[in-house]
């Protein structure tokens, strides 16, 4: 195995680990979405990229390359829709919140 793809694998799993620690530690749902979406998406993208580097321009490598933008769009749009949905559902933000502009728009 190529050493560069091993390095990408280890980086990816480490970022997944950070994301899941954030999922447990952070106080409310919006902050959890922040950590989880960013870290886990980049970690998994890095794992897929390592597959592309290991197999090169073969069908498997190209499929791994196609999966990266799909995963990216799926994660960002999912995070956006989930945060909007949970605000409308009425889930409170944490006590440390210092400013909320969306409440005025939502009252109308």
């Amino acid at each position, binding site marked *: 195995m190529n050493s560069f793809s091993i390095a990408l694998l280890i980086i990816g799993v480490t970022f997944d680990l950070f994301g899941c620690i*954030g999922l447990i530690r952070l106080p409310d749902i919006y902050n959890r979405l*922040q950590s989880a979406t960013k870290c886990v*998406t980049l970690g998994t993208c890095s794992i897929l990229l390592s597959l592309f580097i290991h197999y090169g321009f073969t069908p498997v490598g190209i499929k791994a390359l*196609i999966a990266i933008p799909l995963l990216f769009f799926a994660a*960002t749009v999912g*995070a956006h829709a989930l945060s909007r949905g949970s605000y409308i559902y009425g889930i409170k933000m944490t006590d440390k919140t210092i400013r909320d502009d969306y409440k005025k*728009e939502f009252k109308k």
Partner: protein
Amino acid sequence: MKYITLFICMLLLWLLLTFNLHSANIIIGIVASLVVMMLFGNKFFKDWQKFYNPLRYLWGIVYLIFFIWECLKANFDVAYRVLSPKMPIKPGILKVKCTLKSDIAKTFLANSITMTPGTITVDVIDNHLFVHWIYVSSQDPNVYTKKIAGRFEKLLKKVFE
């Protein structure tokens, strides 16, 4: 015309997905793209001319490199906030004005904001984005608009408008 654009995109995606150039594979790909074109063509992007402008792809590559750099910064930022024992968070939802006009550019701005340091787009209403920020460093509208949206808008205007 947007039907033909969808057809070309789907054929390219099929050829990448199967990755061989046998004649049987190409014929099945053309049939499959025709089926997709018939079923989903009327909902595809109306401004199809943008697909045939090579300059946009060039700016797209520049944007991609810039975006990957921002994305890496975002990850180290979140990792720092998660791992430090005091958890330095000061969250809030801010109203950010964006100067982009077209819908597709707004969509990509929202997606880019979601992947950059400490911000996530909650809603898009007309010309305003509602952004959840994990560490609100300043409450002045000019400063935070420039900090959140300003760095992408110039490039996105060249790519999508």
